[in-house]
């Protein structure tokens, strides 16, 4: 696949570790130096993500849900109730870690780690803008999808190892759901790749950088959401299923199977699973932002601000869906996945291929 448009100057320069190396005057060709720097960069990004999860997961989520349901939510702990974040962190971590009898260790212990780390791993190739990107391999997009889907393994492990029927059902539901929706997700992502001709994240961002058309003096960028809104809608729906939010929160479905695969987890494991879930949503947001919303591009404000704004917008969308949309039944979900989404995403892929072919031959 050849790029269809001349690539504009990429927004980001070299990946973050190399940038740091240059700043510090170290030799970027020395593996040891790069290892340490990449480690530091990864640590920094993980810290930012953890911070984000803490704010949005503990405080933001309550406030957002409250706004949807006409309530106020936390407002007694410090300004706007913000001090609930440390309070809750301490509360969650200081709870007793209950290990039920008959759980299958170490699978049971590994599951939360797998869930949380698979989502974090995806962020390694996400371009946050302003040169904040740990690595920029040529297979960036494939890497993101591959790591994100490791979470399914974690969910199955959690469900299967818990020795609890609700967990078991939740784990099986999670796997069935992820299988059904990952394929449309990847296929729709592939339709973007058809346009850019590259799996490299920086290239995908760069390809969306020029103006598509100018409407009344306002230049509309060639974000893929404007070029192919159909693919965007498909991707958003598949993404909702991928992160397990309404109408696809079937693996947890609290009113049916208590808490699904996480029923038996308490204390720090519970935190890890929750963390994994939120970071998964953020990763979904990051992929949507990169593939469809032009990544860090945007006027006036620095790139990474835009990037985070887009990511959080996707997060808000999931919360909105959660407050307003009913949950599907598992058979309906599978039906929609295999009979609807899969067909549509193939159609989208073919359509995109035709359009790309027409443009190129023109």
């Amino acid at each position: 696949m050849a790029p269809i448009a001349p690539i504009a100057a990429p927004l980001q320069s070299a990946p973050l570790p190399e940038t740091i190396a240059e700043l510090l005057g170290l030799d970027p060709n020395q593996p040891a130096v790069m290892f340490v720097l990449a480690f530091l960069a990864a640590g920094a990004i993980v810290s930012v993500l953890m911070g984000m999860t803490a704010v949005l997961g503990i405080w933001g989520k309550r406030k957002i849900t409250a706004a949807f349901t006409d309530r106020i939510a936390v407002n007694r702990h410090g300004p706007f109730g913000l001090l609930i974040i440390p309070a809750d962190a301490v509360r969650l971590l200081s709870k007793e870690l209950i290990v039920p009898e008959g759980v299958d260790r170490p699978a049971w212990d590994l599951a939360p780690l797998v869930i949380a780390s698979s989502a974090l791993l995806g962020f390694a190739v996400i371009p946050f803008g302003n040169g904040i990107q740990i690595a920029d391999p040529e297979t960036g997009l494939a890497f993101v999808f591959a790591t994100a889907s490791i979470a399914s393994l974690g969910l199955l492990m959690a469900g299967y190892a818990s020795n609890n029927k609700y967990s078991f059902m939740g784990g099986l539901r999670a796997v069935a759901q992820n299988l059904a929706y990952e394929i449309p997700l990847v296929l729709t992502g592939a339709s973007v790749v058809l346009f850019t001709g590259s799996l490299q994240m920086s290239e995908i961002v760069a390809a969306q950088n020029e103006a598509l058309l100018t409407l009344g003096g306002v230049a509309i960028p060639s974000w893929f959401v404007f070029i192919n809104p159909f693919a965007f809608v498909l991707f958003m729906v598949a993404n909702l299923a991928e992160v397990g939010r309404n109408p696809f929160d079937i693996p947890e479905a609290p009113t049916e199977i208590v808490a699904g695969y996480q029923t038996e987890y308490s204390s720090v494991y519970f935190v890890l699973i929750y963390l994994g879930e939120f970071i998964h949503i953020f990763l979904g947001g990051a992929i949507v932002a990169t593939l469809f919303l032009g990544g860090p591009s945007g006027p006036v404000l620095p790139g990474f601000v835009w990037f985070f704004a887009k990511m959080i917008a996707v997060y808000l969308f999931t919360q909105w869906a959660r407050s307003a949309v009913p949950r599907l039944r598992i058979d309906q979900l599978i039906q929609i996945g295999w009979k609807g989404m899969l067909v549509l995403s193939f159609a989208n892929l073919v359509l995109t291929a035709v359009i790309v072919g027409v443009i190129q031959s023109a």
Partner: protein
Amino acid sequence: MSLEEPEPDDGVIEAAEEVGVTTEGLDYDALAELVGDRLLDREDHVNAEGFVIRPDDVQDVLFDLRDEAGFDYLSCVTAQEYDDRYESIYHLKKYDEPTHELSVVVPSTKDDPRNQSANAVYRTADWHEREAFDLVGIEYDDHPDMRRILLPETWQGHPLSQDFSGEEPQIVTLREHANPLQEDHRGDDADTMFVNIGPHHPATHGVLHLKTVLDGEQVADVEPDIGYLHRCEEQMCQQGTYRHQIMPYPDRWDYISAGILNEWAYARAAEDLADIEVPEYAQVIRTMSAELCRIAAHLLALGTFALDVYGDFTAIFMYAVQDREVVQNILEDLTGQRLMFNYLRLGGVAWDIPEPRDEFFEKVRDMLDDMPEKLTEYHNLITSNEIFQLRCVDTGVLPPEEAKSYGATGPVARGSGIDFDLRRDDPYGYYDELDWDVVTEDGCDNYSRLLVRMQEVEQSARIIEQCVDLLEDWPEDEREIQANVPRTLRPDPDTEVYRAVEAAKGELGIYMRSDGTDKPARFKIRSPCFSNLQTLPVMSEGEYVPDMIASLGSLDIVLGEVDR
């Protein structure tokens, strides 16, 4: 309820040629002729005649009464112990004409109390007879599942029987109780999975235990296990005086803001028992306050149903609770209470509309004015949502014949197209003077039951509006809120009455027998939730787990009323 139970014999019920129906009402002589030799004696109860029959003729007689005389509704089974005998009373009614009542009285001997089960005729008898066995101690032959229902399996004795002593400790070791945690690989080579849904589960609306057998995600068998919230309500009422001490209890049956509806059930039965006339003005206030309760109860049902279908972050639950709050505030102004109203009195109500009256009426009118807009919002949010329709249309199907056999009433019956509402069919209070409609939907599914509730809110609003109009124009010197009732009520001995009202969940009936003292000798509560919950296996077998949860939500049970 297991799959092995015998299917009931669904006799064709012909409305046209029912025995004993005359233009003036029920001709008990014709019915007596139908029963023929099997009739031992005829009793006179306040609400209907009682036909005494032999304990081994129960099925025979009930089949005849159902198929020939059109009594397709077994409202309640009351069991009680006398000094010389045990007695089961089958309160029969007709769905088409609930004023056509007949009590079938079945005495059984003191030393071996048993009679034939009515389960083959009416499926609803299953649980009612289990309760009779559990609390009173009568055994029912041919019953498919003669076990305790409210008390633990290991309970010693029958608490409403005469020789039961509450003083004696229940000498049952913990070990003898069924251990919910024990290994339960029932049929190791089976493809099914047994799972306990409840007693602690997010979707059971209280402490309900569903013993569920799953085949993959589908429900192969479900058996509701109730009794976790049994509080001896019947016995407590038997220990209270008619005049003052019983009225607070009804609030605690269906405690989801349907208090005044429940109080009315007791008030109606006791007023009929003691022959008390309620002043019209009080009736209007009762009607208004009862309908306020109904709105509050239905809004909560709507909200919790949304929880079951949407998941626990849905906005609809909070919206419903907010709208219910407006009604709750009005009820608080009227009764001084938000939950346990204790507002009705025998022969009237506790006090008049609070002063200043204009302010109160304005508040009510504001609520009524806002109601259409709010209901439109709910329709936009819920009933017209396609995913919601996907989930609720044609799931949890309860065919009308099954509903009738199980004695389903209220929105559950009306959602199955059964046009049955005691407010219209067996009028009490001020309902027959007002202009309103009975809502029915014939979808028989979860969706219809929700629609019925939402439309009933509209109808209740209509009723309240007319009541407010009446109350506003009521001449000041005729505002009589209380009839003249003696301080101590002692109805004549051996007077028996069964009276029901249309509560939020269906027919809430009270059976009382007096023994000449100021306390009832037997106080039996016919709870609509108890009968409605029995239909859950019909609705959910073969369905998916989420649909079973939705069906449970659409039944709108309150465990306080199921377990009493």
